[in-house]
């Protein structure tokens, strides 16, 4: 077994560039099939740059296809891909180099929605060991529903710091939606729902319960 290790390492080193070249060729073929040649070329350059920087590339290709399918012009498509790439780079910067690709994608969506980058960093500090995908998705959703980015960030970071699990965060989000749909002010409703959850969990003496019934506490 030990003798085989160097051989495996050599094979991996030999095959890695080939796999990357395969990904590049595949992305370029997909882009060429759906986009005008000039647009496909510009998007491919951005995708290559992202790959070289170690950022996820599928969201960039998807963003280009989304623009094309919704009738955006060439500048709109390339601009959308560039914004996505920039947001992903900024998200990784805020969340840390060890972030998972899904966290980077979710973080990019949050940044594009107007969430400040330092909120992402505070979220990482609030949940250093756990995945930030759901907190970031919830954050992005609250902003899309009209909650000011600052208020949404404070709510999600506060809940995460208090040990809210993913399911609890999703239920908090549902309660906020209901409150907003019933005529509540987005910021006020968000603050009230989170405060209420904090009171209930403090009363129960166990974090993570109240909004969703989960009993497992995630300690920061």
């Amino acid at each position: 077994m030990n003798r085989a290790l160097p051989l495996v390492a050599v094979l991996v080193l030999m095959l890695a560039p080939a796999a990357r070249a395969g990904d590049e060729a595949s992305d370029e073929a997909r882009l060429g099939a759906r986009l005008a040649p000039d647009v496909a070329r510009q998007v491919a350059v951005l995708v290559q740059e992202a790959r070289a920087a170690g950022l996820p590339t599928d969201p960039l290709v998807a963003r280009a296809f989304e623009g094309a399918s919704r009738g955006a012009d060439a500048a709109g498509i390339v601009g959308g891909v560039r914004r996505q790439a920039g947001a992903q780079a900024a998200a990784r910067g805020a969340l840390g180099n060890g972030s998972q690709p899904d966290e980077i994608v979710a973080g990019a969506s949050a940044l594009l929605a107007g969430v400040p980058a330092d909120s992402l960093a505070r979220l990482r500090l609030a949940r250093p060991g756990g995945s930030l995908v759901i907190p970031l998705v919830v954050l992005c959703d609250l902003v899309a529903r009209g909650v000011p980015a600052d208020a949404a960030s404070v709510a999600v970071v506060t809940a995460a710091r208090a040990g809210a699990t993913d399911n609890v965060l999703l239920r908090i989000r549902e309660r906020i939606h209901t409150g907003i749909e019933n005529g509540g002010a987005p910021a006020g409703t968000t603050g009230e729902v989170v405060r209420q959850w904090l009171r209930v969990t403090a009363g129960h003496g166990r974090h993570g319960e109240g909004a969703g019934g989960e009993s497992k506490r995630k300690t920061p």
Partner: protein
Amino acid sequence: MAEDHVMRKNFFVLVTTSLVMGFSTCAAHAADTGLDPAAPGAARSLAARGPLALSAAAEPGSLHWAFETGVPLGLTRRDAAGRLRPVTGPWRLDAFVNAVHDREDAATAAGLGYALRLEHARERNAVWLGLSRGGSRADGVPEARLRLGAGVAHAFSGVHAEVEWVASSVLFRDERSRTYAYAMQDSAGTWVPRDTSVIEPSNHGAFWNTAQGTLRWRAGRLSLATVGGLSMGEGVSARPWAQGMVEWQLTRRVLLLGSLGERPAPSLAFHTEAHPRSMIGIQFAPWSTKGWAMNSSLVPSAQAWKTQFEPPDRLIVRVHLRDVSNAEISGDFTDWKPVALERLHGGWWYTVLRVPPGIHRVQLRLDGGAWQSPPGLPRADDGPGGPSGTLVVLGAHD
């Protein structure tokens, strides 16, 4: 008795034929009729309402029901997407068979009626010309051999006005007494004048005319209408009449109706859903489209969203939709190409997609409208095509 039997047999043959023809043409038609629901008369169009309508109404102590089936006779062609499109533009030709049963002729079989209606409908105007025969009639009302109807409708802002005229060739089936005078010779050889009376059937025709006007106001699912007219003809004195109607579109297929006042048989000849007297009723049209339902009352909407993930990359999507004829989904996992959802029962639609675990963006489109975020999913508004939902596939039920 024999006449009743023949009528019943004819009725079932006609209904079966009409249903077969109606389903083959009209049901396919129903998905996209190309009709403007706001156009006057569009709600009555067979292409919009579908090949079958059942209505029942009641008043204290009696029940009135009507069954109507029909075939749109307009020519159609298939477009590039395989949908049937009318080639006759604003022209529509519909053939109807209806059976109406009323307390007034409760002892007989349902009155069978046939109608042919040619209609030319534009955005705000419609004219129609129709021929009708038979139909229900109350005791003492003469049989209508043929009715010729014509109408003009116009949509003003929020109000539809229609003027109609129906000429009926009616047949009076009555008896006439004839007296014959003659002379007989008595035993003395004298001629004595005598007479005798004989009762014999005497049928004679007459023309009756009915002129009527309708004003209809609609708001959402509610429609209020008033119809008034004058009936006159040979052998009868001119009679004014009026009726008020209220309709509530409960669902796309179900219409609740109420009426106050009376309207004569000629006025009902081309409106089988209408009531002869003050009644409360319901009409059910199982293959109706939104064009039949009241304008703007039925907005396509997505009610609920469910997914089930089956590793490694199979995602079953179920969406509960209301008042929708077709639905599509698209997302990064389809390279943003639209994928049609299949209709299940109870308003649920579904599709199975290849979606790897991860974070995805997804949108729904209902009846060709704007792309929207699926209900209940976290939303992101940063895309070029409007809000999209964020779908997190964790590798288990999400």
